[in-house]
C-alpha cells in the first residue's frame, strides 16, 4: 500500500501482511494478513490498521452531536430515536435542570426533538447527555434530514459551508452527525431558504466546485455572501 494514499478496501481483502500490524475497527487477522472486515477507507496509524466505512447507516461515536426525537419515557430518563440501530438513552441526571420524576413529560414529551451529545456507545445502546452549551430541547425552526454521509460536505472545511449559510440567511444552523439539520431563525422565509441551500448541497455532494455553486445560488436568491470571510474551497472541492 502506498503511503499517504487513501485506499478503498472490500470485505475479505488483505490490507497488509505481517504480524507486527494490529487489526482495529473494521479489520481482522487471518494468519499473517490483516483483512478488511467491512467496506471503507483504510486508516493505518503506526501499526494500527482500521477500516472506516464510507457509506451506510449512521454509527454513533462518542462526542457526536445528534438530533433525535423522544420515543419513550422511562422512570429515569428518555429514549431518543436518532436514526441509528438502537435508541439513545438520556438519563434524568444528564439534563441541565431539575426534573420531577413524576412529571417527566413536562420537560420532554413524546415526539419532541432534542440536540444531544453522545456520551457513551455500547453495543446495546447509546447514552447521551444535554448538559453542555448548545444542547437541549428544540423549539421552533425546522429539521431537515440529509443522511449521515453528507454531513461533512454540509459542514464544509472547518465549518465554512455552514458559516456561509448562517451569514446569508441569518438563521442558526445546527448539523447533527446523524444526518439531521436543525434550522432556526426569526423569519420562516429565511428558514426555507436555508433549507433549500442545504438540500442543494445534499443533492450535489459529489459535485466539483460546490462552494462556488452554493455561493451563486445564494446570490441568485437575492441574499449576500459575506465576502469578508475567506472560504477555503480548493481543498474541499477536489
Amino acid at each position, binding site marked *: 500500500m502506498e503511503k*499517504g*494514499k*487513501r485506499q*478503498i478496501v*472490500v*470485505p*475479505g*481483502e488483505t490490507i497488509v501482511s505481517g504480524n507486527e500490524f494490529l487489526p482495529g475497527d*473494521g479489520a*481482522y487477522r*487471518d494468519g499473517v494478513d490483516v*483483512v478488511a*472486515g*467491512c*467496506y*471503507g*477507507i483504510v486508516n493505518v496509524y503506526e501499526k494500527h490498521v482500521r477500516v472506516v*466505512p*464510507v*457509506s*451506510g*447507516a449512521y*454509527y454513533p461515536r462518542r462526542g457526536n452531536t445528534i438530533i433525535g426525537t423522544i420515543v419513550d419515557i422511562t422512570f429515569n430518563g428518555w429514549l431518543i430515536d436518532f436514526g441509528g*440501530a*438502537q*435508541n439513545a438513552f438520556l438519563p434524568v441526571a444528564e439534563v441541565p435542570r431539575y426534573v420531577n420524576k413524576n412529571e417527566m413529560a413536562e420537560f420532554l414529551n413524546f415526539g419532541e426533538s432534542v440536540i444531544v451529545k453522545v456520551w457513551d456507545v455500547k*453495543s*446495546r445502546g447509546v447514552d447521551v447527555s444535554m448538559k453542555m452549551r448548545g444542547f437541549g430541547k428544540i423549539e421552533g425552526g425546522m429539521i431537515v434530514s440529509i443522511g449521515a*454521509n453528507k*454531513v*461533512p*460536505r454540509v*459542514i*464544509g*472545511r472547518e*465549518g465554512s459551508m455552514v458559516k456561509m449559510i448562517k451569514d446569508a440567511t441569518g438563521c442558526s444552523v445546527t448539523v447533527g452527525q446523524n444526518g439531521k439539520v436543525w434550522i432556526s431563525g426569526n423569519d420562516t422565509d429565511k428558514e426555507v431558504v436555508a433549507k433549500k441551500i442545504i438540500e442543494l448541497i445534499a443533492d450535489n*455532494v*459529489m459535485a466539483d466546485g460546490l462552494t462556488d455553486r452554493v455561493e451563486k445560488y445564494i446570490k441568485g436568491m437575492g441574499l449576500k455572501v459575506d465576502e469578508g470571510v475567506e472560504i477555503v474551497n480548493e*481543498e*474541499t472541492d*477536489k
Partner: protein
Amino acid sequence: MVVKKNLYTKRKSGRKMDEVRPITANVGIVPSADGSASFQTGKTKAIAVVRGPRTLHPQHMQNAQTGILRVSYGMMPFSVEDRIRPGPNRRSEEISKVTEWALSSVVDLSGFPNTVVDVFVQIPQADAGTRVAGINAAALALAHAGIPMREMVSAIGVGKIDKSLVVDLDKYEDSEFHDGEGSTDIPVVVTSRTKEIALLQLDGKISVDEFKECIEMAKKACDGILKVQMDALREVSGVRDQKSGGKKNG
C-alpha cells in the same frame, strides 16, 4: 450398448461452454437506502436494497446476542414473458431463505444485538440465474451499507446440458432444453477469501465426477464475478473525494 451422441455441443447463445454472460454491476443506485446495488448478467437483472441495522419488531423476534439478517426476494410481475402474480409464493420464499443463509455465513451482526438488517432483492428482468444475480447484488448492497462482513460472496449458476458442462445457464438452457439427458442446474455461492461454498443447490441429474468439475468451473467463474463486484464498489460515488488525498472535510 449404443453410446448416444452429445446433443448440446454448441451453445445457443454462441458462448463458449465456460463463458459467462456480460456482467455489469452498479453500487449506490437507491439514494434513500443505506446500501444498494444492481447486478446484471445478460438479460437477467437484479436490484438489491439494504436497510439497517435497525431495531427489530416484533420484539419477540429479537436476538439479544446478535443482529439478524432478513432477506426478501421477489420477481417483478413483468420480469418474465407471462405475467407473474406479485407477492410471495413458494419459490420466492425458498430463494429468500437460501439467500439469507448464504449471506449469513459472511456477515457479522454480533455488534448490533436486537436489530435487523433487511435485504430486499427484486428481479425486474429474468433470463434464468435470478437467485445468483440476486445474491451478487445483495452482497454488493450489504458491503455498500457498511455492514461488517468477513468476506464477499459471488454466485454463479453452473450445470449440465445433455452431456456438456456449462457455466451461467440462460433461460433456454435452464428450462427449455429437454433433449437427451436434459438440463441440470447448480447455483453455487463462493466466498471471496476462503473460497468456501456458501450455497449449493442442484436441480436435475449429474454424476459425481461431472459435479466436481462443475464446482471447479463455478469457482473459476466466481473469481471473475468478484473482480466486477470489487471494481463496482471501488468506483462508487462518495469515495472519490477522499481518494484524491485531500484532508477529510469537517
